[in-house]
């Protein structure tokens, strides 16, 4: 997982697995919690740059079509 998009896909996978029952709710909660932390970090970075009136290119927010 390197970008926000990849994390989204990963989270969707967890969501599907939770629905199937192939993953326990507790395990899913831990993974989701980790994603929450990453979102928090990304927010802090964004806020830092917004306050400094900067707009650097951040790899984490890169969007590219998924490879087939």
């Amino acid at each position: 997982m390197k970008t926000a998009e990849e994390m989204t896909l990963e989270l969707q996978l967890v969501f599907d697995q939770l629905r199937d029952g192939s993953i326990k709710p507790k395990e899913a909660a831990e993974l989701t919690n980790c994603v929450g932390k990453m979102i928090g970090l990304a927010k802090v970075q964004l806020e830092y740059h917004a306050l400094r009136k900067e707009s650097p290119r951040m790899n984490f927010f890169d969007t590219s079509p998924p490879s087939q």
Partner: protein
Amino acid sequence: MDDAVQTLSNFKTSEKDRARTQQWIAQNRERHLEAKRRYYAINRTQILEKQKAHYAAHQREILDRQKIDPAVNRARVRDWQRANPKKRNAQFKRARERLTDNYVRSTLCARTELRHKDIPDSLVSLQRAYLAALRSIKDRP
């Protein structure tokens, strides 16, 4: 008639074709949804940009027709929201249920100095997936 135009006109879908397509979709629901999902995944950025541009153009068109300044309109909307707290709450409730773009952005901007425009689309998608996952975990016993 031009050859190209003639060729294109041959591809116009008739009522019969549309009915056949709908019938196929009804019979192969999963395949249809899978194809739609794949198309959306490949063209997500372009689709979102197109939708945003279309929405903005539509909003501008409405304001131009009524000869209203967008800033005045924003103030008017805020006044309406203050005057109708119940309707505003219903709007918010609906947005929370549907995880709308605006709602997800507002959750990201809460208790920060960030504005909605500062949040990239990829982070919005991630936050939406995160909120959906949280909800599904909460629903579980």
